[in-house]
């Protein structure tokens, strides 16, 4: 592992077998990861972006020593996650998030104290450090309340507090803002930015492009267990280059019309979506030549047609990438 690389994976595969049925136990195999190669630089926020079921949690758990890869190798801070888990664990933190994963009947402070002991936090520093992280995530006032009284956002903050308690050098955050109200989500993102400023390497998974765009310098897009793109945010933007995005909306289009538009020079992609009674066609254009007027000529008999050109967003690229993989 070269200097400055915090996480490195080579050909990581992971399959799960689950059983279906009761009497005739049919074993169903799911390939959650199909050969993941990644390099995550130390000291920055790396974003792993992907839709539900892409394999984000699976990869996160493998890197955090909670799951073994079926094949391939993963190194975190130079430790092999499969064979050197005990040496690695004190140096990493994992935040799986969600409503679960906390002792609900006891206070936030007691939850933290338990894990401080499990991580062998120096006794002299224990109380001080717990106060520190509670303040850090904004839970000082709620520290002695039972966790069962906490809101979703407060639980998420407590998860993060536990994740950073032992001052890990690498922090894994699996969809840290999922299910949070916008205000809590913003606070959580602010907290994450603060951590990386202190030199912690953060591996963050999300299915929101805007979140990755806001927080991360480098992004990898995971789709169906494969990395389909890996670049800096700026690089991903360049990927779009001079691409234009145009949206056509009308009360329905004929299949033949859609076919004609698809066949026009420069149209690299066409997605049809329904919006109530209206149908929207989103076009990605790789040329400056194609003008709205030409499109209009292809679609006679749609007096109510609206055409709108807009900037291609990273979200568009992300959806393109994920869909290409699916087809």
């Amino acid at each position, binding site marked *: 592992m070269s200097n400055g690389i915090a996480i490195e994976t080579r050909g990581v595969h*992971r399959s*799960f077998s689950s059983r279906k049925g009761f009497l005739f136990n049919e074993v169903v195999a799911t390939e959650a990861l199909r050969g993941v190669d990644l390099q995550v630089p130390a000291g920055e926020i790396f974003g792993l972006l992907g839709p539900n079921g892409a394999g984000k949690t*699976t990869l996160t*758990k493998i890197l*955090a*020593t*909670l*799951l*073994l890869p079926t094949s391939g190798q993963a190194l975190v801070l130079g430790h092999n996650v499969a064979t050197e888990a*005990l040496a690695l*664990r*004190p*140096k990493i933190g*994992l935040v*799986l998030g*969600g409503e*679960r*994963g*906390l*002792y*609900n*009947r*006891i206070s936030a402070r*007691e939850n933290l*104290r*338990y*894990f401080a*002991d*499990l*991580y*062998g*936090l*120096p006794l002299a*520093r224990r109380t001080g*450090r717990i106060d520190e992280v509670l303040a850090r995530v904004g839970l000082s006032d709620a520290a002695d309340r*039972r966790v069962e009284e906490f809101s979703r956002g407060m639980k998420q903050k407590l998860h993060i507090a*536990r994740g950073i308690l*032992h*001052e*890990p050098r690498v922090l894994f955050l699996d969809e840290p803002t999922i299910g949070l109200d916008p205000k809590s989500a913003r606070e959580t993102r602010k907290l994450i930015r603060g951590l990386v400023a202190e030199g912690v390497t953060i591996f963050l998974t999300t299915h929101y492009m805007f979140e990755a765009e806001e927080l991360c310098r480098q992004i990898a897009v995971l789709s169906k267990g494969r990395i389909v793109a890996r670049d800096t945010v700026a690089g991903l933007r360049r990927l779009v280059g001079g691409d234009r995005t145009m949206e056509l909306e009308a009360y329905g289009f004929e299949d033949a019309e859609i076919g004609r538009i698809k066949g026009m020079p420069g149209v690299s992609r066409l997605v049809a979506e329904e919006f109530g009674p209206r149908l929207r066609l989103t076009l990605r254009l790789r040329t400056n030549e194609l003008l709205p007027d030409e499109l209009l000529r292809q679609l006679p008999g749609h007096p109510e047609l609206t055409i709108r050109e807009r900037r291609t967003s990273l979200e568009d690229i992300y959806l393109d990438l994920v869909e290409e993989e699916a087809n």
Partner: protein
Amino acid sequence: MAPSEVSRGRTLLASVRLAVLQFLADPQWLVPSMIAPVVFGLVAYELFRGSGANFALYAVLGAGMMSMWGQTLYGSGWATGQDRELGTLEPTLSAPTPYLWVVMGRVVWNTVSGLIGGAIVYVVVVASYGRPLSVPNPVGFVLMFVFVIVTLAAVGIVFAAWYVYTRYAGFVQNVGEFAFYVGTGCMFPVILLPFWTNPVSLAFPPTLAVDALRYVSIPGYQGLSWGFWGDVAGALATTAVYLAVAGTVFHRVEKHVLETGNLSEW
């Protein structure tokens, strides 16, 4: 700040502390741990009344075992099942201390609460009896009582591993519970069971320990043919085997769950 070596003793203490805090936080625990022994004591007293000179002793032993075995034998496994349900099993296993030491802490707590239950039974029966029990060998009685608990705890550790292994452990346990209870002779001496059950029963150290306890406390008791010392030796040997395999079993189970990835199932 990451320490090079995480203390196992500290994990064990933290685990005891957590168990106590959770106990105090949840009043429902008062039922099995405090009220059940009172009920068991009263029922056993009525049940055994008039069945010979030592009936009060029989009542103490029967009810004492009944209130202790569940706590001590299954308490630790149950807590692990609880970890699964709460989703705390994953963060706990991702800590740098082997999970076995968390379980050990729970075993210590369950042993203590099992003993408290036993003491409650004793007080209830003596109060119903109206005068102190004449135990022929009080020191031996107390020692063997604790010994039984230790053997139960040893089996309890191995049972807890089962809870880490699969989310179905609770179901399997509920089915097996009754058989185990009868098989170890907690309810009535194993000697009364059909012969074929003996090898199974004898694989459980508490069977022998309970028999030894009866030898010590009931005058003229005729239990397993090898007598008191045979019981003690056998119980010690089987307990040692359980404790020795516990480490290996946990190590294997932890590896297994990382392979199958079923830690978050519940």
